[in-house]
C-alpha cells in the first residue's frame, strides 16, 4: 500500500521538558487539530497546549442537585401525598429524617454523571484511531510522549509539520497512515 492516506504526523519525545516546549511551539504556530499523548498526566501541559478549562465540575454539581431534589420530592410524595402513614407521631413530611437519603442520592447522581460526563468528554468508547492503527500506541501508553499533528488541520502539510517538529528538537518523527479501508 504505497498510496495510503496520511492522517497525521507524530513526534515522539523522551522527557517532559521537550514535550512542553514542543507543545508551546505548536500552539503558537496556530494549529488547532492536534494533541499530545502521554503515559501519565504531565503538569502544565494543559497551559502549554492552550486548552480551555474542563466543564466537568458543572456536570457533577448539576447532576448532584437534580438527584438530591428528586430524592426529597420522591420521599415527600410517597410519605405525605400518595400513602400518608403516621409513624412515631411525626408529621407526614418529616424532612429531617429524609436528609440522609437526599444526601446519598446527591452523591449517586453526581457520581454517575461524573463517570458518564468523563466518558463523553474524553471520547472514550471509540476504539479506532490513527495511533491504534499505526502501532505507536504502545510507545505513548508505556513511557514516551508524543505530539500528534492532525492532517485535517488547515495548516497541515507533511513537510511543514515535519519541519515544525524537527525545529523543536524531535528526534523521532513518524507519519501516521489511515487504516486499510476494507470497503475501498
Amino acid at each position, binding site marked *: 500500500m504505497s498510496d495510503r492516506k496520511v492522517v497525521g504526523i507524530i513526534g515522539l519525545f*523522551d*522527557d*517532559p*521538558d521537550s514535550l*512542553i*516546549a514542543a507543545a508551546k511551539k505548536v500552539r503558537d504556530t496556530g494549529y488547532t487539530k492536534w*494533541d*499530545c*499523548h*502521554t*503515559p*501519565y*498526566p*504531565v*503538569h*502544565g*501541559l*494543559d*497551559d*502549554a*497546549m492552550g486548552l480551555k478549562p*474542563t466543564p*466537568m465540575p458543572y456536570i*457533577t454539581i448539576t447532576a*448532584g442537585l437534580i438527584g438530591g431534589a428528586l430524592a426529597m420530592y*420522591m*420521599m415527600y410524595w*410517597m*410519605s405525605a401525598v400518595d*400513602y400518608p402513614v403516621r409513624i412515631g407521631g*411525626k408529621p407526614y413530611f*418529616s424532612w429531617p*429524617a429524609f436528609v*440522609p*437519603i437526599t444526601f*446519598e*442520592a446527591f*452523591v*449517586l447522581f*453526581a*457520581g454517575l454523571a*461524573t*463517570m458518564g*460526563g*468523563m*466518558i463523553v*468528554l*474524553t471520547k*472514550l*468508547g*471509540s476504539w*479506532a*484511531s490513527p495511533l*491504534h492503527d499505526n502501532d505507536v*500506541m504502545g510507545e505513548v*501508553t*508505556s*513511557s*514516551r510522549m508524543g505530539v500528534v499533528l492532525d492532517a485535517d488541520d488547515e495548516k497541515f502539510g507533511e513537510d511543514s509539520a515535519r519541519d515544525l517538529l524537527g525545529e523543536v*528538537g524531535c528526534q523521532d518523527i513518524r507519519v501516521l497512515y489511515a487504516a486499510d479501508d476494507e470497503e475501498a
Partner: protein
Amino acid sequence: MNPPPPDSSTLEEPVVDSSRAAKLQADLRKLDADIQAPMESFPTQRWLGAFGLAQIGAVIFLITFVYTIARGIGVWGNNNPVGWGFAITNFVFWIGIGHAGTLISAILYLLRQKWRTPIARFAEAMTIFAVIVALQFPLVHTGRPWLAAYWLLPLPNANNIWVNFRSPLLWDVFAVSTYALVSIMFWYTGLIPDLAAARDRAQHRVRKLVYGILSLGWKGSNRAWQHYEKAYLLFAGLSTPLVLSVHSVVSFDFATSVIPGWHTTIFPPYFVAGAVFSGFAMVATLIIIMRKYFKLQHVITLDHLDLMNRIVLVTSLMVGYAYMMELFIAWYSGVVFERFAFMNRAMGSYGWAYAIMVTCNVILPQLLWFKKIRRTIKFMFIISIFVNIGMWFERFVIIMALHRDYLPSSWHDFTPTWVDYGMLIGSFGLFFTLLLLFCRFLPTVAIAEAKMDAPGAQPTGGHHE
C-alpha cells in the same frame, strides 16, 4: 557530567540532559514491567494453593447461604432478644474493612499525601470486595432475598404502600448501595489508563482484546487527561463525605434505637474511627503478603508501611477513647439501665469478648509507638491480624447488648450454630477469591500515578501554582 560546549547555549529549546531523559525512560518502562509482571506470568503453585483454599471458603459460604434460605434463618443462633447475631456483626465488620480503601484512595488524595499512590489501587479493590461480601449478610438476613427488593427499595407494589423513609435501616440501603456503586466507578476510572497500558503490552490476541475493550479505547491524549484528572478529583471529593456518611448511617441502625448501650450520640464518629482502624489493619495484613509475593518491595516501601502503622495507632487511640467515654457516660448518666448494660458488657456472659476487644484494639496497638516495631514486618503483621480479630469482636460485643434488655423475663444468651460459623469463615473465602482474581488479572498498583511521581517525570521549568 561534562559541561556542555559553549555554543549549545544559544539554542532556543531548553537544554535537555539526554542521560536524564534516558533514565526516565528506563524508570517508566521498569515500572510498567514490574507492576504488570504478575499479570503476565502463569499462576504459580502458591497462588493456585491460596486460590484453592479461598475457593473452599467460598463453597462453604455458598452452602451455608443456600441452606439458610432453604431452611429459614432459624438455623442461625438468633433468638428473640438477640435478633441480630453474626449476620449483622459480619456486615458491619466487612463494611468497616472497606472504609480504609476509600480513605486511602479519596481522602489522602485530596490531602495530597503522595505516599498513598502505591497502595491506593489495592486498597480500593479491597473496599469493593469487602462491600460485596458485606451486602450478602443483610440480603440473606431478609430470608427471601428474591423478594427483598420490595422491602428495601421504593417499588410500586400490590399493597400500594411504600417503604418507611424514616427508618435508619432504609437509609442504610441507600448509603451502602451508593457507596458500592460510587466506589466501583471511582476504581474503574483509575483503572482505565492502566488497562490501556496492559492492552499495549499484551502479546496474546485474547488479552489484547479483553484489555482493549475494558480500557474503552484510551489513547493517553492530553485532551482526555484534562477531563479525566478533574473527574478523578471530583470522585475523590464525592467519596470523602460519602464514606463518612456510610458508617455514620450504619451506626444510626444502632444509635436511633432505644436499646441501652446503643442509644448514644458518640456512635457515628466512633464507628467511622473503628472502620478506618480495622480497614487499615486489613490493608496492612494483605499488602505485606502482596508486596513480598509480587516482589514490589521497592514500590511499596517500609516507609509506606510505617505511615500506615501510624494511622493504625492514631485510630486505635480514638477507639480506645470511645470505649472509655462509653463507660464514663453510662456511669455519669445515672441511668440504671445504661449502667447495667455496660457492667454486663464488661463482666457478663460475653465479658470474654469484651476482654478480647480491649486487648486487641487498645492494648496491643500501643506497641506501634516504637519505631522498631512499626518498621519490622513480622511485628506489624501480627498486630494487624490481632486488630482485625479485635474489631470483629467489637461489633459482636455491641450487638450482644441485645441479650440483656429492659425486661429480665426475655433475657436470652446467644449461641452461634455451625451455620453462623460457616458463613463467617465462608465470607473470608469469598473475599479472598475476589482479591486473588484481582491480583492475577488487574494491575495492583496504579501505574499511571506511579509514573507521574517518578523522579524527573514532571517538567522542571513548567511547575507553577
